[in-house]
């Protein structure tokens, strides 16, 4: 499975991709994480790619994805044409206005107010990335729940583990509602 997280620096894009791929390694899968950032690393374009496979990975920078997580309008507009037909799009509905004309055929679009919920429920916009991780994993199961929780706990700053895990569970709950 190939997943691209895209947004701007400060949204936890690279961290989210890192957590997914670390979870995949804990699951015993082959995995690569790749990232891109501009020379101006704060505020500029940010993306994190995840490739999870059972076999050797040859493609180091994927050019199409099964899942696109878009957290800014430019990220959505740049990368949506490269989502595979039938793929899954997850976006923050307060930050991205979807345009069907740009979208490949038969994609499954999931719009959630991740940043808004993160702020209202947890007082921290930054955990929007965890809400999305929980949502995505409940929806598509790229990694096991156990590995995801382990990777989150190991990766986030000390003392914030519970908040991040709670945010991830909130995302799972939202996915349950969406189903």
């Amino acid at each position: 499975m190939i997943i691209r997280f895209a947004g701007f620096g400060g949204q936890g894009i690279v961290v989210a991709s890192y957590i997914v791929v670390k979870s995949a390694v804990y699951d015993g899968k082959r995995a690569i994480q790749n990232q891109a950032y501009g020379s101006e690393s704060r505020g500029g374009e940010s993306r994190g790619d995840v490739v999870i496979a059972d076999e050797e990975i040859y493609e180091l920078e994927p050019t199409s994805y099964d899942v696109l997580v878009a957290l800014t309008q430019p990220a959505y507009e740049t990368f949506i044409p490269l989502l595979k037909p039938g793929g899954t799009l997850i976006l923050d509905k307060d930050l991205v206005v979807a345009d069907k004309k740009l979208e490949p055929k038969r994609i499954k679009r999931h719009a959630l107010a991740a940043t808004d919920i993160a702020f209202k429920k947890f007082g921290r916009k930054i955990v929007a990335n965890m809400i999305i991780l929980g949502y995505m994993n409940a929806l598509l199961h790229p990694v096991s729940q156990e590995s995801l929780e382990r990777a989150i706990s190991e990766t986030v700053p000390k003392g914030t583990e519970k908040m991040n895990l709670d945010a991830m569970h909130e995302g799972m709950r939202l996915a349950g509602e969406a189903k």
Partner: protein
Amino acid sequence: MALDDNKRQYLSRLEGKTYFILGDEACAYGALFAGLDFFAGYPITPASEIAELIASELPKAGGISIQMEDELASMAAIVGASWTGARTMTATSGPGFSLMQENIGYAIMTESPCVVVDVQRSGPSTGQATKPAQGDVLQARWGTHGDHNIIALAPNSVQECFDLVLECFDLADIYRTPVILLMDGEVGHIRESVVMPQVSSIEHASRKIAARSAEVFGGEELVPGMIHYGQGQNVHVTGSTHLANGMRDVTTPHVHDVLIKRIYDKIDKNREKIVRVETDLDDKKKARVGVISYGASARPARGAVRAARAKGKSVDFLRLVTIWPFARTQVADFAKDLDIILVPEMNLGQLSREVERFVSGEVVSVPRIGGIPHTVDEIYDAVMEVVR
């Protein structure tokens, strides 16, 4: 070189573990397992993570890490420290590698073992500073002036960033020469799993120590022994043409001839011992088309070869682990029955010219610049265009 107690104690916390880390970080850990004593460097994207990790970890293992004022000084510092018996390294990217060339020449001429890591980025000049490339392949070979030979290795995975830096330190000590780990920004900035070895399983090569300081730069052997400063012996070390005892003689043609031919030959005559390649041959059919690649480009290249075989096409694959000295025997042997050899690389065809020199078939460069690696598809298309 045997690891001291500080290093063993430090490494005992890492050995046997699996880490999910950047290629840059794997390179830094590999250096620590190699027994790195001294690191001097100057930060530059996409190599900064090497210096960053070494700066925080090397002192814990009893070593010294210094951020120098620039790359010229970094290179000078690792040459100087090498003469105290230390295993030394620096890490940089294209622009810094250019600045290091003068002192790399000095390291070659003074036969100072050291490791230079170049995580190649898109140039010339500041180019696409954060994007990967393989544009320094010929700079690694001919960047410094004068007749010389060089050893350079190119990893194609995060695990290999770890494994090959260990090999670089051994080659540097065995051949008393600077050795270049020619990474690229792609392999340096992806994260993959790395398995750290058991410390006891690693055999570190040792430097030969000269019995007499009069033969530190000559004598019977292609690679003479060194002396280490601070252990009772003195020797004159100079970048100017010198006699076996290190004293300058810049006017006698024979002295220069003997010195430079020996420095050249110690790598040239050991080519077969140094060179490593990896082949993936089609065992079912006799292929007429082959692909040769290295570093990050070798990943999509192999993917394309596998995809072509899945379509019933017969294609052979060779990956250069050692870039310099060039694997001329291995490449000639690989290509002897091939009509066409494709060479995907992240530059405008630097190594494809070297391939051309040693094969009779047609060599087709598959270049890729712009800061992104080849896709499997584009190499697959190039293969399918020529394969029957």
